[in-house]
């Protein structure tokens, strides 16, 4: 949690949360964590006591928290997305100028203790916190911020590894200048106003790296990441695990646990088994099918996190050119069956179209955009003269995707389509999405997580005709009148958070659905966070969005 003493424009999180967390932190500082941490460690693995003494740091807390992750390439670099697991490690090692806890969606000060925004919304002046230590002992200054953000903004930056994806590239394209006024003041000047800057800077791409380390390791920084976060990098083995250690000088206090191990566990049943056997302390990659089983087991806790991601069916408008047919597809989908059978109840029917309940801008007034009406679907299909139309449907072969594909296939066949499906390995799914000539490019099942909980992240990126979804995937950009959609999006993005902004997004969403229907919502769900019963203090709201804040966690 941020310092309470700054004069930032950001709202503070609600009172009770702060007090609970403050209390927890206080407790661990006072050493109450000893009882928590050591007992399970000693009983669970008698052999481990020798090892923990070596790495314990003598502060009397301890234990190892093991998170199951999808995969690791042993590269942790905020400018280079490799896997969700590696991304979680970056999230623990580095912090950014701003921070969103996901318990609240408001950007709060982190490394920047305050900021000022000019009246024209173009100039952001960040004042950095004084005396904050990196893992390598250097002290935070504006040079670190510049070095870190410039490698996001500048594709020619020398410290970028080959193939780096630069997640903040699009923000960079809107940056006129990034300068240091002095050691603790950074000025960011935009070309066009963008209200989401603070939120974007809280994303993993906006994380600050030690400039000394960047100078030393260059493009190899991903194997030696040095940040300011609660955990420092210890070791990583591709395909196996990433090991982090508690950082004694973390700004908000040393984390209660000694070590945080992110361990690759890919087989869904292995995830469930290792949660039950205690080999894994927590994960958000739990298969939905296990939810009942896990809820009934006292050795684990199933966390109820708000639905924050969209399960979507993308329709390629170039291959399904008639709006009536696309609407028929949307009307045919049995979302109740998807929620129950593909997500085992860990989802809700989408009543805010693409904005899920966990986000600002969620509006249940849009429920009618995602309803089932088979009779109407058949009628539209007949009117379009498209009864018996053949559609190719592709879905990734993991998690809920294949089951949703089977349900959608049957729904569409009930409405009068002919559907052939293919399941695609998750690693190559994305490259098939980008290939408009793919045989199965008519309908594509996909999910969109929000690393930044702002409506711009969902609607802004999916309804933007120039974006990946709007062009390559759905061909929205080939339809008439979409220019004004893009303009409306820009206006909505720059409204202050509140009713007016929500209304603007709702209007856009309604038009986007009714006039184009290139994205049919299947469900809103959350990544199912499950932890061992002894694990306390993990930020489950963040973990449900694949964000990893473990500074309060104890085992």
């Amino acid at each position, binding site marked *: 949690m941020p310092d309470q003493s700054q004069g930032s424009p950001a709202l503070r999180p609600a009172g009770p949360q702060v007090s609970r967390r403050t209390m927890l932190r206080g407790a661990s500082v006072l050493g109450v964590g000893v009882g928590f941490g050591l007992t399970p460690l000693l009983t669970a693995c008698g052999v481990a006591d020798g090892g923990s003494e070596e790495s314990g740091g003598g502060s009397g807390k301890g234990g190892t928290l093991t998170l199951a992750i999808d995969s690791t390439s042993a590269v942790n670099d905020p400018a280079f997305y490799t896997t969700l697991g590696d991304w979680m490690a970056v999230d623990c090692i580095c912090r950014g100028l701003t921070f969103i806890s996901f318990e609240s969606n408001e950007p709060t000060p982190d490394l920047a203790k305050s900021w000022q925004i000019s009246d024209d919304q173009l100039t952001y002046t960040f004042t950095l916190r004084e005396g904050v230590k990196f893992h390598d002992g250097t002290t935070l200054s504006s040079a670190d911020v510049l070095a870190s953000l410039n490698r996001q903004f500048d594709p020619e930056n020398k410290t970028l590894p080959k193939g780096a994806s630069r997640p903040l590239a699009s923000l960079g394209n809107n940056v006129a200048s990034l300068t240091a006024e002095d050691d603790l003041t950074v000025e960011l000047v935009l070309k066009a106003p963008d209200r989401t800057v603070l939120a974007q800077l809280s994303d993993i791409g906006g994380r600050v790296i030690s400039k000394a380390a960047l100078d030393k390791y260059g493009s190899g920084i991903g194997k030696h990441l040095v940040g300011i976060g609660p955990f420092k990098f210890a070791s990583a083995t591709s395909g196996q695990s990433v090991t982090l250690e508690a950082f004694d000088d973390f700004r908000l206090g040393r984390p209660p646990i000694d070590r945080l191990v992110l361990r690759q566990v890919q087989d*869904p*049943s292995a995830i*469930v088994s290792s949660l039950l056997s205690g080999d894994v302390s927590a994960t958000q990659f739990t*298969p939905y*099918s*296990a939810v*009942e*089983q896990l809820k009934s087991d006292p050795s684990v806790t199933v966390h109820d996190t708000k639905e924050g991601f969209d399960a979507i069916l993308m329709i390629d408008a170039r291959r399904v050119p008639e709006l009536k047919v696309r609407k028929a597809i949307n009307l045919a989908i049995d979302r109740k*069956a998807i929620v*129950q*059978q593909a997500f085992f109840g860990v989802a809700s029917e989408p009543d805010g179209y693409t904005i899920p309940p966990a986000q600002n801008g969620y509006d249940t007034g849009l429920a009618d955009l995602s309803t089932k009406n088979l009779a109407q679907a058949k009628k539209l299909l007949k009117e379009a003269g498209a009864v018996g139309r053949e559609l190719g449907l592709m879905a990734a*072969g993991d998690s809920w995707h*294949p*089951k949703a*594909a*089977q*349900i959608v*296939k*049957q729904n569409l066949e009930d409405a009068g389509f002919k559907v052939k*499906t*293919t*399941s695609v*390995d998750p690693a*190559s799914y994305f490259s098939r999405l980008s290939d408009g000539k793919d045989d199965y490019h008519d309908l594509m099942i996909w999910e969109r997580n929000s690393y930044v909980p702002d409506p711009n992240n969902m609607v802004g990126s999916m309804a933007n005709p120039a974006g990946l979804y709007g062009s390559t995937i759905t061909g929205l950009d080939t339809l008439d009148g979409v220019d004004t959609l893009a303009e409306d999006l820009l206006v909505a993005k720059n409204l202050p958070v509140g009713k007016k902004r929500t209304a603007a997004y709702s209007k856009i969403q309604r038009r986007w659905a009714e006039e184009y229907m290139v994205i049919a919502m299947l469900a809103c769900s959350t990544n199912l966070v499950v932890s061992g019963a002894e694990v306390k203090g993990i930020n489950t709201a963040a973990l449900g969005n694949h964000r990893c804040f473990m500074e309060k966690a104890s085992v």
Partner: protein
Amino acid sequence: MSDHTGTGLDAGRTGPGLGRASSGRWAARLRQRGIGTSWPAMVSWVFLVAIVLIALVGPLLISADPVRQTNAALLPFGSPGHPLGTDDLGRDELARLVHGARPLLFVAFASTALAAVVGTGVGLLAGYAGGAVEQVLMRAVDLALAFPSILLVILLVAAAGPGTTSLVIGVGVSLAPGLARLARALAARETARDYVVAARLGGTRTPRVLVQEILPNIAGPMVAQIVMTLSVAAGFAAGLSYLGLGIQPPTPDWGYMVQAGQEFLYSAPRLVVLPATLTLLFVVACNFVGDDLRDALDPKGSA
């Protein structure tokens, strides 16, 4: 992956007496010795024939739709209209099991046939021709053996898409080298024998020598080995469809059903146990039948 064939062992171990046996003699021996001499073999023959029959005609007899989803998901055993209950998407489990036999049987038989034709052909030619031809062919066999078979199948599936064709080619090509090695050893021995030398000196053309003279004389041990290969192919095929590389859902298939059912290992174990047991029984039956045939066709090889 179990690549149980192509030990080269059989080649070295097959007694010299066998080679001279004419085609008439091994047929006679088959009749004379009979098949299904032990009770596991008898049971296996019956089971195998039954499974093949079920795969062929079963789908016509079962009225329930194996693909149709209903809201009656995860019904237990003995539910009205669903004797074996329903799966997670409310589909009749019995119908899925009956229909699900087809892909496995098809891949097992077709890939074995492919392996048999390619393996015997290559081995026969190499063993007969000797010299450079043999060198080239057998190095190709070495290459095929060294090529990780799982990689081969994954590459095929990635290129041609998942499905039975990719599996048949992948499994077939993985199993062919073993058969090729055996065929080469057997053919080389036959080639040196008087009757082949005589035929060649008498001007019989090569294809004729291969097909009419040598093939019948190596057929016994080859057939025995090929039947053993069938069980390996079945196990391999089931494993690959378990990995999702086989026929695509919703079409039922035992291997994939095991994989999909794994999610319900705790709540509805039958969704794993039934298809896994059927797969196991099928592979076991193939093995016993293979043993039995080997006893009948290649007595020395089975000692």
